[in-house]
């Protein structure tokens, strides 16, 4: 009896040694700061004295009445929507293309995937050149047609589009790779059966491929939304949220309020709460999907 009990204790101790450090770090750098962020959002916090004064909902009111806020929320919405639509449709198209028996398709797949592993800061540097209205690549390509290049990064009308292009360029390969795996997981019998029933290529795509890919599409939808909320490096290096806030999104606004001249810890915490609530609900969706996958496995 004593021996069994001691063995149990050893199991428990082993568990704590193995899982404890990870959990401790979560408590210190995820759970605790989340609660503290919530509290900070009701405070006027002075970073030099490291103390806060309770001011109720003032920070929320300031953020709500700030004319920038609506614009930044709108920017975030436009950016995320455009990115999701472009990445999912182009990802699916390229996956269907590269799933055919063509030569060099593995090489093209690798090339397509490579921007996803390159640092956003480095990628942004090249694109600053590509968008340059006097010498850039796009200018060179438009010149033969007599079209003037827009001032991509300095014109509020065009800057957001420029950021979207770079971001889609960078993450497209990820969606393609996932979609290719999804295509290969669809049983060939389904296509054969559809063919026997006289379905043409479009009907097979519409009624076999699209439904067969729906779990993958859902996964990509959630990950692309979540990642797009965290797009910071490209924006910071290319536009710094400008010109006149045209590319300022929630994550950049959070950085500005937290760590630049306009620093205000309380307001930054409000923005962080907004970001958290949005991402929390999107992640909940993802978890339901992961759970479903577990039960099917």
């Amino acid at each position, binding site marked *: 009896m004593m021996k069994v009990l001691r063995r149990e204790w050893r*199991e*428990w101790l*082993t*568990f704590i040694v*193995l*899982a404890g450090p*990870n959990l401790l*770090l*979560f408590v210190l*750098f*995820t*759970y*605790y*700061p*989340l609660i503290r*962020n919530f509290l*900070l959002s009701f405070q006027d916090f002075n970073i030099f004295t*490291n103390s806060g004064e309770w001011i109720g909902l003032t920070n929320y009111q300031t953020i709500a009445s700030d004319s920038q806020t609506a614009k930044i929320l709108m920017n975030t919405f436009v950016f995320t929507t455009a990115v999701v639509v472009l990445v999912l449709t182009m990802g699916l198209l390229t996956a269907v293309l*590269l799933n055919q028996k*063509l030569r060099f398709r593995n090489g*093209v*797949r*690798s*090339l*397509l*995937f*490579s*921007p996803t*592993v*390159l*640092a956003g*800061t*480095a*990628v942004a*540097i*090249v694109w600053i*050149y590509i968008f340059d209205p006097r*010498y850039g690549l796009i200018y*060179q390509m438009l010149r033969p047609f007599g079209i003037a290049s827009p001032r991509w990064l300095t014109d509020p009308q065009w800057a957001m589009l420029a950021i979207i292009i770079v971001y889609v*360029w960078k993450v497209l390969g990820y969606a393609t*790779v*996932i979609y*290719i*795996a*999804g295509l290969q*997981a669809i049983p060939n019998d389904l296509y054969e059966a559809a063919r026997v029933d006289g379905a043409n290529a479009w009907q097979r795509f519409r009624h076999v491929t699209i439904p067969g890919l729906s779990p993958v599409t859902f996964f990509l939808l959630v990950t692309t939304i*979540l990642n797009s909320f965290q797009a*910071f490096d490209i924006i*910071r290096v290319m536009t710094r949220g400008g010109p006149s806030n045209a590319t300022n999104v929630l*994550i950049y606004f*959070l*950085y500005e309020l*937290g*760590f630049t001249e306009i620093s205000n810890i309380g307001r930054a*915490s409000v923005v*962080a709460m907004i970001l*958290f609530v949005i*991402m929390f609900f999107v992640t909940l969706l993802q978890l339901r999907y*992961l759970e479903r996958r*577990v039960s099917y496995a």
Partner: protein
Amino acid sequence: MILNLNARTIVSKALGYAGMALLVLLIGLPIAWLITGSFKTNPEILTITPKLLPERIHFGNFVEAWQSAPFGRYYINSIWTTLLGAGAEVILAVTTAYALVFVRFPFRNAVFVLLLVALMVPEQVVIVPNYLTLAAWHPSGPIQSALLTLTEWPARITGGVWPPRSLVNTYAGIFLPGASIALGTFLLRQYFRTIPLDLTDAARVDGAGHFRTMLSIIVPVAMPAVATTALLSFTAKWNEYLWPLIITSTDSMRTLTTGISRLQDAEGNAQFGVLMAGALFVVIPVVIVFLFAQRFVVEGIAAGAVKG
């Protein structure tokens, strides 16, 4: 009929290759431009008749980039913080996943739920309180000093910050908040659950404890999943930008990604050649790793998303 079919295949093949060519151009041109641009002189880049290849290979940009920002230091800092961060993530993912699958513990499910909730809190959301935590952390006592000696020794060699007064602008400050890992643990746990229990039972009969079972049986069997986790951690840490930007305040502690902004400030956006050389400094290590391991990564993430 047969002829008709052939014509159709030829057309669809031709369309396929045209599509591939377009993709290669769209994705490849910016990358090619980054590489060749860093070997060009500035007049060669700032011209209205640009060519993809430089007149002759010109190394001046690399020299100038290296001189206008301390890239040697940035390299040391990036390598060290990536080693610490990715190393911690991989070790913690393996040990936590192993504990969750193979070790008996009364609150195992509660721990798993804690992990799932952590999955819902992205690092970026808690940057402000995490900064305050690290800024208020005054390392004292023998254990903390010993730990700091372990993480901060490169700073002592390169003349960085030593001894630190808080964890702001230290290696520990850069890697610690991102050292815990939820998603990797979750995916490894999924993988470990597919390992037949006979394997661990056999080890138990042979008298192996948990640590030996984990290291000599589970990790080798799950090597593809562990390696994918390691590679993804490596690229994520190497490319990380927002947190190092916030937590470092001197050139002696900056990493490569944050150093690029420093170079941009020093040179201005017109010095494209120098900037592209700097950008190349940042991406080369990842590209080298990726060239050897890309199949692994591509298949790993695809399997993770589709099969689970």
